[in-house]
């Protein structure tokens, strides 16, 4: 049995009297790639911030490698990529990495890992959305985390770059032996790439095999209305539209 990296037990989060997450429990094991889907305002970002220890749950516990979140973060077990970062930083790709790594050789290795070695001297602000994500993934990997938390890393990236990005994450997952928890809105895309899916709208509506997500009742319950999901396969072999109505 693989080791457990993250455990959430009955986690409830509230802002004032508004309950945003209710009784969330699940476990992420070593080397698993999780996709978290759900509607806007469903609590996905709040969940990631709770795992990071930035928000304290009113009930329940979070533990990462057996430690409370803040301690796990301090030990470098957690990497985090937020939804948006400042785009106008006057830094080259190398400079971005040197904020978190001091050895030049390690910077080169990380840029090579994400396929950005050739552009190491290019200004970060001049890169395309997909390239920026690659550099940031390299940055996040620098501390050799055991758990990566990615908040909608593919917003604004075209579908070809997205496929490449997911492939990269799958490769990194194996090579760096890291578990990944990724928030995404692309239901039809992530079901092809992740090992497990969590469907979140205040409570956990589903947790398990990605194939189980394409279920009319589940998607209607999750989004509160009928939805259409474009199910995308790499190179569009077998792409189709899934409708709940």
């Amino acid at each position: 049995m693989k080791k457990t990296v993250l455990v959430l037990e009955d986690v409830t989060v509230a802002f004032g009297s508004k309950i945003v997450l209710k009784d969330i429990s699940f476990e992420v094991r070593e080397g698993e790639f999780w996709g978290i889907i759900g509607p806007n305002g469903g609590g996905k970002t709040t969940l990631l911030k709770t795992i990071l220890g930035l928000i304290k749950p009113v009930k329940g516990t979070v533990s990462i490698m057996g430690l409370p979140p803040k301690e796990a973060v301090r030990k470098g077990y957690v990497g985090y990529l937020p939804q948006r970062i400042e785009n106008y930083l006057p830094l080259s790709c190398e400079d971005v990495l040197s904020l978190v790594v001091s050895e030049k050789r390690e910077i080169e290795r990380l840029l090579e890992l994400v396929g950005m070695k050739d552009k190491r001297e290019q200004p970060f602000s001049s890169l395309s959305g997909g390239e920026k994500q690659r550099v940031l993934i390299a940055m996040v990997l620098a501390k050799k985390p055991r758990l990566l938390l990615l908040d909608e890393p593919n917003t604004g990236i075209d579908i070809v770059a997205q496929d490449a990005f997911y492939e990269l994450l799958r490769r990194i997952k194996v090579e760096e032996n890291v578990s990944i928890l990724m928030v995404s809105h692309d239901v039809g895309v992530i079901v092809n790439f992740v090992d497990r899916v969590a469907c979140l709208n205040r409570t956990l509506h589903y947790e398990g095999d990605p194939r189980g997500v394409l279920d009319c009742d589940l998607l209607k319950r999750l989004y509160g209305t009928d939805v259409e999901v474009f199910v995308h396969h790499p190179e569009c072999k077998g792409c189709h539209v899934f409708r709940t109505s």
Partner: protein
Amino acid sequence: MPCVPDFLIVPLITAFVVAVSLSLLSFFVVLKRWAFLSVGVSHAAFGGIALGVLIGVSPEFTALGFGVVAAFLIAYFKRKGGFHEDITVGVLFSFFMAVGVVLFALSKSYITNAFSYLFGNLLMVSGGDFSFSVALLLVDCLFLWLKKRELLLLMMDEDMAYVYGVNVDFLYYALVFLVTINVVVAIKLVGVILVTALVVVPASVALKIAHRFWWVIFWSVFFGIVSTFSGITASLLWDLPPGATIALFCGILFFVSVLKRY
């Protein structure tokens, strides 16, 4: 530059020191979108100045007190998201400004004094101001040098900075505090209303032409000095308030940099 009389030498050197300080911090103000924060701080300081004048306490201290209180309130609400930033700034800045106007009116020194603080007056700058601004410049440089890595992570994203071990709350408020002191110190030279130009324009222009951190800082300082030099020269030549002429040159610089892009 016209022949400079002796009594203007200290104010002039002080002006350059202050310009360098503000330009150094300009990068962070621009990236953190704090232009409005500097407006709030400077106008709040005006209330403090008036109080100082009225009760006979050195206005520098009261200005700093008011500025710091306003800065922390604005920064706190901006981060916690309780109110929209423009609401906090809008309320605080008009409130403190109104306090200033009322107090100046009560102290019967409204017209001359208030005008100097609103638009800057080189003659108000003393030897003490010069020493303080030099000390402040050293603190700014040291802060930037020692905290460069943490500051850049903070600019990138606060939660990400936290993951990399940055003490985000401390650094954020330290930066707010430093920007506040620098803005308040510049008021005598550039005035309450126009100090924002010198905090915002240098880095905005520098970011358009440079893509590495130290180059942005270099060009920022360069543009800060150029605007100040040109502004003060014009102010001395035509006997105009230096704040207005410096802000005019900042504006021209900005418009030229925008036009050059098209």
